[in-house]
């Protein structure tokens, strides 16, 4: 019996040691996961934390539109059906931006813009005004190369 008892005593010691060891390993594992896990999770954190409406260098990254008063109204009303690229590549006077909105309302299912219309038209004509081109422009952005 004493043999038996001492066996249990010894085993308890061994178990205790094992439990402590496991505990330390567990804590270490958690720490490792925290440190390593942060790196692995980078992609997810990007998605979670990056603002879809963030501005970089004065440009609304998601649409490419210029950051200026009226941006939000323009993004919300003018990029639902078509790409912002269609806005950005155009240059118009106030009257012609207005006429374009009318045309979209008459033929393309654009809704009534209410009091947002003035804000949007002002944004467009301020940031995308017509540029004088004359009857023929000079060749620009020529990439020179040696022709073989």
């Amino acid at each position, binding site marked *: 019996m004493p043999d038996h008892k001492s066996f249990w005593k010894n085993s308890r010691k061994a178990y205790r040691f094992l439990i402590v060891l496991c505990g330390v390993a567990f804590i270490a594992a958690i720490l490792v996961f925290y440190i390593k896990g942060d790196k*692995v999770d980078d992609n997810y*954190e990007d998605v*979670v934390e990056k603002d879809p409406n963030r501005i970089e260098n004065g440009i609304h990254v998601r649409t490419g539109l210029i950051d200026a008063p009226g941006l939000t109204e323009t993004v919300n009303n003018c990029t639902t059906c078509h790409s912002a690229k269609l806005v950005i590549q155009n240059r118009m006077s106030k009257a*012609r931006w207005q006429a374009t909105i009318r045309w979209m309302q008459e033929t393309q299912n654009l809704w009534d813009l209410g009091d947002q219309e003035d804000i949007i038209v002002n944004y467009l004509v301020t940031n995308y005004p017509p540029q004088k081109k004359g009857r023929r422009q000079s060749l620009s952005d020529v990439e*020179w190369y040696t022709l073989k």
Partner: protein
Amino acid sequence: MQRRNFVKKSALAYLAGILGADIVYGAKMPMGYVPLGLQEPDPFTLFDKSKEMVVLNDRPWNMEAQAHLLDDAVTPNQYMFIRNNGIIPEDIDVDNWTLTLDGESVKERKSYTIQQLRTEFKPYTYQLTLECGGNGRSEFDPPAKGNQWTIGAVSCARWTGLRLRDLLEDVGFNDDAVYIGYHGADVHLSRNPDKEPISRGMPMAKALQDETLLAYNMNGEDIPLAHGFPLRLVAGGWPASVSGKWINRISIRNQVHDGAKMEGSSYRVPCHSVAPGEKVADEDMCIIESMPVKSLITYPKSGAMISEGEKMNIRGHAWAGELEVDKLDYSIDFGATWRPCSLQKPNNRLAWQQFSASIDFPKKGYYEVWARATDSRGIAQPMVLPGWNPKGYLNNACHRIAVKIV
């Protein structure tokens, strides 16, 4: 572990929110993977296009070539411009695709399967020039609204299909027929099923020409999706919007077709020339038919430098809508003097023609090589912008490239 799961779970919820659907098996998605529905589509892979093509618009898709990409006599798909007014149809089922003929002037409403169109009508192949009516729009002043095409919205592929005439004769039409109007499977940008993004057409005279095809092949293969698979009209020499894509219905009309983009300022220009920026009354606007004479220097690419004493070989294409190009001249002194290029005959009517020349430059310096085509009626390309029009159509001003002799 918990935090990691939390991050992953909240990311999945966020993604699901954007997609408007739960991501089933989201937990099994590899870390860092972006679901297909969210990926910024790469249009070059999506449409099998060269990376040198220029994207003007991604909703709807519009893409143009650059001059040097169009060097092939027969334009391959990878350099062919894309012009869409609506959303490209999804889930096309060729086996169950039908083309219906209807309209006031049709003898009897009738439908055909693709198989019938392929087997019951004689196939014809033509090389046909398709140029967007708005090609060159970017140069107009005051600017015109719409996609700002530069020079690359033109192509000349080999199209195979049946003659539209054979089909119209098969179904039968009354003497009062004046126009055909097409209807396609593309979807309006607003996703309103009652609206068509574009539904244009052509007068009977154009519809009955030998070369006007209802095509099912391009360059010997199925038409690529972006170019109208499985069936499109090809009316060479006219604004490319006449050549409707994804065609499922053709109406034989007893009046000028009044579908989407037939009216207002769409594909119409002032009947009489107007001052730049002038307002034009609706009744003074005329539908564009044949495209004007034009040419493009496709070799060398603008910006070429050669050594003094070397010759420079140039080449390119010229086209003239319904007409043939009679003459192609080049100038290296801004139009003060012109010299002739050699010019080939077209492969068939309405195909573009190849020109070439070998140029001597007198001394070192900056030059521009200008090309000017003249059509069979003696009308030549202008060096400056042609008549202004509200939507900036028909810019056929001479193309030119920059050259340095060093």
